[in-house]
């Protein structure tokens, strides 16, 4: 190629292309540094021994900060709560959105267009709009938390883990995404299996669903992230430490002991690592264009 040979040869004057490339690299490095430096700083503070000046090079790397963070302030409890909530919601969201997405894409369900219209309309509704009424509903779930059969008298699912899960058990966006993936698959696959006598559920589960595994992974990671990172809902629905999730517990800890920076940053890293790793794992699905059909 002409570009390659021109760039390869040492020209007497500096090629403007090389100057431009150097400038682009310099800008990209600055942009990256704006991200890498705060992250590295967080790691450094997280490893600073107790009592040393924050932000100076630590005299030694104090890995026990991670253990200390988890032993103090019920962090282990918060971690278990977050894990239970996030894993349960991931499973329910994946199951519900696969089933409903498949039905909406491939099966002649009555009210299908109405349901699709509803899902699309719900995409615009800000979740914060339902915050207060959902709180009222959760406090009135019948026969829970001292409530009678009409949902009065007690506190319902307030301050329970099922209560924390409520907004994340299903997602209109996830159903809609799964429907888009299923609908891009050929109908002939199912027809062939039908002629062989497969039941509709087998066709759903054994023929079509294996073909949308990347989409399942993406929906699952988004569900996990939404439940794991949520703050507002756990804030309103829980009031005691034993039901708090990590995001909430960390905030309460910060507002009570704002000077314990090393412990706080250790906790910050520990609760971010799982989700960051998940995102790195599914990154290839984004890049391979697995989502292009659905985002259109």
């Amino acid at each position, binding site marked *: 190629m002409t570009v390659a040979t021109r760039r390869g040869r040492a020209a007497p004057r500096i090629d403007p292309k090389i100057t431009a490339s150097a400038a*682009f*690299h310099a*800008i*990209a490095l600055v942009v*990256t540094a704006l*991200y890498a430096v705060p*992250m590295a*700083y967080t790691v450094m503070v997280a490893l600073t021994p107790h009592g040393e*000046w*924050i*932000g100076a090079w630590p005299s030694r790397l104090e890995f026990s900060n991670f253990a200390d963070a988890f032993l103090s302030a019920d962090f282990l409890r918060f971690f278990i709560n977050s894990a239970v909530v996030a894993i349960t919601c991931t499973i329910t969201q994946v199951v*519900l959105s696969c*089933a*409903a997405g*498949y*039905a909406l894409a491939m*099966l002649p*369900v*009555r009210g299908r267009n109405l*349901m699709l219209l*509803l899902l699309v309309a719900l995409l*615009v*509704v*800000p979740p*914060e*709009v*339902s*915050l*207060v*009424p959902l709180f009222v*509903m959760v*406090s009135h779930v019948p026969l829970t938390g001292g409530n009678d059969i009409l949902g009065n008298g007690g506190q319902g699912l307030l301050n329970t883990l099922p209560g924390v899960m409520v907004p994340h*058990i*299903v997602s*209109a966006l996830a*159903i809609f995404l799964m429907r888009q993936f299923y609908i891009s698959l050929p109908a002939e696959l199912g027809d062939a299996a*039908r002629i062989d006598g497969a*039941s*509709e559920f087998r066709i759903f589960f054994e023929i079509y669903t294996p073909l949308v595994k990347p989409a399942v992974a993406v929906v699952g990671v988004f569900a996990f*992230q939404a439940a794991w*990172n949520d*703050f*507002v809902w756990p804030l*309103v629905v829980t009031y005691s430490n034993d039901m708090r999730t990590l*995001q*909430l517990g*960390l*905030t309460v800890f*910060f507002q009570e002991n704002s000077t314990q920076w090393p412990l*706080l*940053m250790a906790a*910050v890293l520990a609760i*971010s690592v799982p*989700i960051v790793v998940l*995102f790195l794992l599914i*990154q290839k699905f*984004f890049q391979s*264009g697995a989502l*292009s059909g659905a*985002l259109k």
Partner: protein
Amino acid sequence: MRPDGVAVMGSDVGARPQARPFTHDLERRQRLAGEILLSPAAVAIILTSVVPLLLAFYFSLTNYSLLAPPQWVGLANYQAILRDPVFWESLRNTLSFAVSQVGIGIVVVVLVAALFNGYLFGGPVMRTIVYLPQAASYVVVALVWNLLLDPAVGPINSALMAIDWGPIYFLSDPAWAMPSIVVMSMWRNLGYFMIIVLAALKSVPSDLLEAAKMDGANAVQRFWTISLPTIRGVVAFVAITWFLGALQMFTQSYVMTRGGPVNATRTIVYLMYDEAFTNLSIGKACAMAVMLFLLVVVLSLVLRFVLRPKREVS
């Protein structure tokens, strides 16, 4: 056969006596399977999204404190809110947060995406680093920024003091609090939207770019006249999504400034939260929720219209 299906579908089947044996049976089986697969999600969606939305409208017209049943008050909650100066201040804060974050952010996102779209040594690694913070929660990013901006031990103020510019009380000075939260939010969200714009840039037809190169257009000209018009729709989508999300800001204010100093970072959602869970005024809180809902719906329609793609490519 399928005894379970007959049991559930009993009444429906009975309504159509003249059955064409095979196709009708197949369609009935498919419909039944579809209903079984769809209904759990449909019930869950209705209970967690539709009913709360309807209840928000209903509660907004009542006086409701959770302790006694709701009492109908008509539009009184809305009138009280519209007379409250703190509401207008919160609305202004919310809009200025959204406008400044997205207005500046969208330009930065497009430029950074264009930068990473070209050849860069180590580009994928740099891109991943920029992309990482959006996987972490707002709480986590806010706490890290609380440390970065801390007037006593934070590195930014250490640097400012070294050149005699500091300390700046980023989070306790009313003039600095909101800009600090805007920068922190932009920092977190940049990577997510950059990936979307980057994917769009990759889909710009390369033959067009090659042809322009042949004609002597430089990189800036090619970007401005070919790439940018092609990805216009995606940029508009990103701007709308980002803006509507920003209107719901709460967590950053709660974690970093508690809505202060002097209401400087109090947003609509923050006010709604306080109204519901500090003042126990569910009716007023729901009236704010309805207003937020209307604001989001109206703005999304307006923005979609203003930023609609030109019909140049079929």
